[in-house]
């Protein structure tokens, strides 16, 4: 008893001594890192810091890993994620402690990047951090990052890791992170479990937790380190269950991808089918209105380049609708108006217009451009441990749903919609019934082009903005309109989703190219069976 106490003391002293030595050496290495005499010194210093794994150095290492390490008055600092309106950042010290920097008046200090000295750490050196990245990311202020870090933790046998983990978990505030952190702890405990019941309990906890490497961990445990075959089998069984669960999630991911692709197609096809219904022609310039919407978003982002965060995108949603709509209106007034009873001619004219619009965009904007993803929509929603649903796609799905609903209400629940549908089918008689056909036609064109513009705005979230971007989607969206049955809102939705899902499912089996060919041929065969789309008109009205 006494012995053991003594032993404990010695151990404690030793630990303290080691810790303080570690503290000392860490400041040395940090100094070497910040002001290296040579590259090799820096590499060595980083190597040592990685090996030592001292929590106090973690903020510093994190800054290095994120390429956000700067020097200000010889202090190692980092910047806060989001810049202010004037592209200025709040600053944090990263070593030896973390605290925000203030100016003389006590307000947070705001500086722009050019006022800071960047500490360049070569990639090779940064890569050294990779093994302990999960460890220091545990200290990240960003919960998402911590969640990832917990999942990525390795060498859980290591007492130092265990200690850090326990420490972090005890301070964890985020619900999800806490759960995952705790369950990482289970993993450690599993390995130290001494009887079947506890082991099984931990296996269950791990399976419930289902972190990134849960199944690998369980398999490893089951095939080697388990202390009896019963637990081993149990672990392997659980691992298999997790695998199949994972496959199911992949399926969900695929469905989601299909849904998102489908929504994009629907969003584009919506305007197309409205305009098609009205002018009775293939509007060759529809894609270009999309492009106008996308460039509107781009321009607004440029105007807002001084900050204001996500506002630029929120504003561009209605603006891209309006700008593209107005362009459509002008086009309608100048050209299409003369062509209502001449479908062929409008085909030609809109083709000509699309050439003009593309070249105009090329001359004004030059080449490849892209819109910054709004902060709110960056990243994804961790729907389940292995299922990330990107926010931008969720947003597009939601936007599509809203637009479909609005379009439906507009077309079928308002007087305007009634008139639009009437004019679409019989201009002359509508006029005789008091419908101002010209105004209605203009409004319809405005809405149709506006919807295209909105689609363009939404597409900036996932793709780039180029003058001929319209062409990329146009055939696909025509296919949607046609397979759904021309002028059928419900058809457009079903076929859009259908094509989305089918494309994604076929991509899971074929390469993307053949997936596309497959889907095209599939549609052709489908049309054999439904030559007038999914929802054909029935009876006499179908004959025209």
């Amino acid at each position, binding site marked *: 008893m006494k012995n053991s106490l003594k032993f404990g003391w010695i151990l404690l002293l030793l630990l303290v001594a080691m810790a303080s030595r570690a503290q000392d050496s860490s400041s040395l290495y940090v100094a070497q890192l910040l002001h290296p005499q040579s590259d090799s010194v820096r590499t060595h210093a980083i190597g040592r810091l990685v090996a030592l794994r001292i929590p106090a150095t973690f903020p510093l290492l994190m800054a290095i890993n994120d390429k956000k390490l700067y020097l200000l008055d010889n202090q190692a600092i980092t910047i806060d994620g989001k810049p202010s309106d004037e592209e200025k950042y709040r600053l944090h010290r990263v070593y030896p402690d973390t605290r925000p920097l203030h100016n003389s008046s006590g307000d947070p200090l705001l500086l722009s990047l050019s006022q800071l000295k960047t500490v360049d750490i070569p990639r090779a050196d940064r890569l050294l951090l990779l093994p302990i990245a999960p460890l220091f990311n545990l200290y990240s202020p960003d919960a998402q990052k911590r969640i990832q870090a917990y999942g990525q933790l390795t060498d859980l046998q290591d007492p130092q890791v265990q200690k850090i983990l326990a420490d972090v978990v005890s301070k964890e505030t985020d619900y999800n992170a806490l759960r995952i952190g705790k369950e990482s702890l289970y993993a450690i405990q599993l390995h130290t479990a001494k009887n079947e019941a506890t082991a099984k309990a931990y296996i269950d906890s791990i399976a419930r937790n289902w972190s990134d490497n849960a199944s690998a961990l369980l398999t490893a445990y089951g095939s080697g380190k388990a202390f009896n075959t019963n637990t081993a089998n149990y672990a392997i069984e659980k691992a298999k269950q997790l695998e199949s669960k994972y496959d199911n999630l992949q399926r969900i991911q695929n469905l989601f991808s299909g849904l998102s692709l489908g929504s994009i197609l629907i969003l584009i096809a919506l305007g197309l089918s409205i305009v098609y219904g009205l002018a009775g022609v293939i509007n060759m310039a529809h894609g270009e209105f999309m492009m106008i919407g996308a460039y509107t978003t781009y321009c607004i982002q440029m105007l807002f380049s001084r900050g204001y965060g996500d506002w630029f995108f929120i504003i561009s949603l209605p603006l891209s609708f309006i700008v593209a709509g107005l362009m459509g209106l002008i086009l309608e007034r100048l050209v299409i108006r003369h062509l209502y009873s001449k479908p062929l001619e409008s085909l030609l004219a809109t083709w000509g217009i699309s050439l003009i619009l593309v070249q105009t965009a090329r001359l004004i904007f030059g080449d490849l451009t892209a819109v910054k993803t709004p902060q709110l929509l960056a990243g994804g929603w961790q729907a389940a441990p292995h299922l990330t649903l990107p926010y931008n796609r969720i947003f597009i799905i939601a936007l599509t749903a809203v637009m479909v609903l609005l379009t439906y209400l507009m077309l079928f629940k308002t*007087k305007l919609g*009634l*008139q639009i*549908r*009437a004019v679409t*089918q*019989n201009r*002359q*008689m*509508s*006029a*005789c*019934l*008091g*419908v*101002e*056909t010209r105004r209605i036609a203009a409004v319809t064109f405005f809405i149709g082009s506006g919807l295209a513009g909105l689609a363009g705005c939404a597409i900036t979230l996932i793709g780039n903005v180029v003058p001929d971007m319209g062409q990329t989607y146009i055939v696909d969206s025509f296919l949607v309109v046609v397979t759904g049955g021309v*002028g059928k809102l419900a058809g457009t939705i079903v076929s859009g989703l259908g094509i989305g899902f089918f494309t994604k499912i076929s991509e899971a089996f074929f390469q993307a190219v053949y997936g596309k060919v497959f889907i095209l041929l599939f549609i052709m065969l489908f049309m054999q069976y439904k030559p007038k789309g999914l929802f054909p*008109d*029935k*009876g*006499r*009205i179908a004959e*025209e």
Partner: protein
Amino acid sequence: MNHAYTAPILSVNQLVAAYGQSTILRGTTLSMQKGAITTVMGRNGVGKTTLLKTIMGLLPVQEGTITFNNQDITKIPSHKKAKIGIAYVPQGREIIPKLSVYENLQLGLIAHADKNAKLPEEEIYHLFPILKDFRKRAGGNLSGGQQQQLAIARALVSNPTLLLLDEPTEGIQPSIAQEIGSILQKLVKEKGLSVLLVEQKIDFATQVTDHYYFMDRGKMVMDGGAEELNHKALEKYISV
């Protein structure tokens, strides 16, 4: 009757109109009294439909004038004409095919002077019971006669002062044709509606009309009161 003393509700003066190169109306003149049914008769292809189309503004007037309620409406677009109280039942019905019967009727409300007017469903369904059963059905799927009934109902919904009817009884079963006749007379009497009717069936015309015109090759060649309208009077023109 003494037409000379009341101002005509519609007068068409020396109207000339053409489809492209071929002139159809060659100086058509017509004047109709308020609160009366005026019938235009004539053989196939003489331009009766063209006359109504021109009055309605579907065909540009090349020469001549059209006056409605002392207002010159020669150059007014169709939808404005509808709004000032002219309703039109065209030959061939022109139902909006993919709108339901109910929606077709609602479309009639657009020209109604009162923006908040409600659809007088009761009345319509009383006149044309069949439309009630088919409220939700696409207009284009109705049978020919049903469509004709719908077209007439649609025109009446807007509560017009002048009704242009192009062969309204075409394809309608005898009992309902008869009823249409009496409805017209009733509306004329009770609401002061004026009707310009294009009709080929003398029986129907004699039954309802107050005044008739006979048209040939784009011109009115004869007119007179209802009492003068009989087969013999028309014979010489018809056999031409």
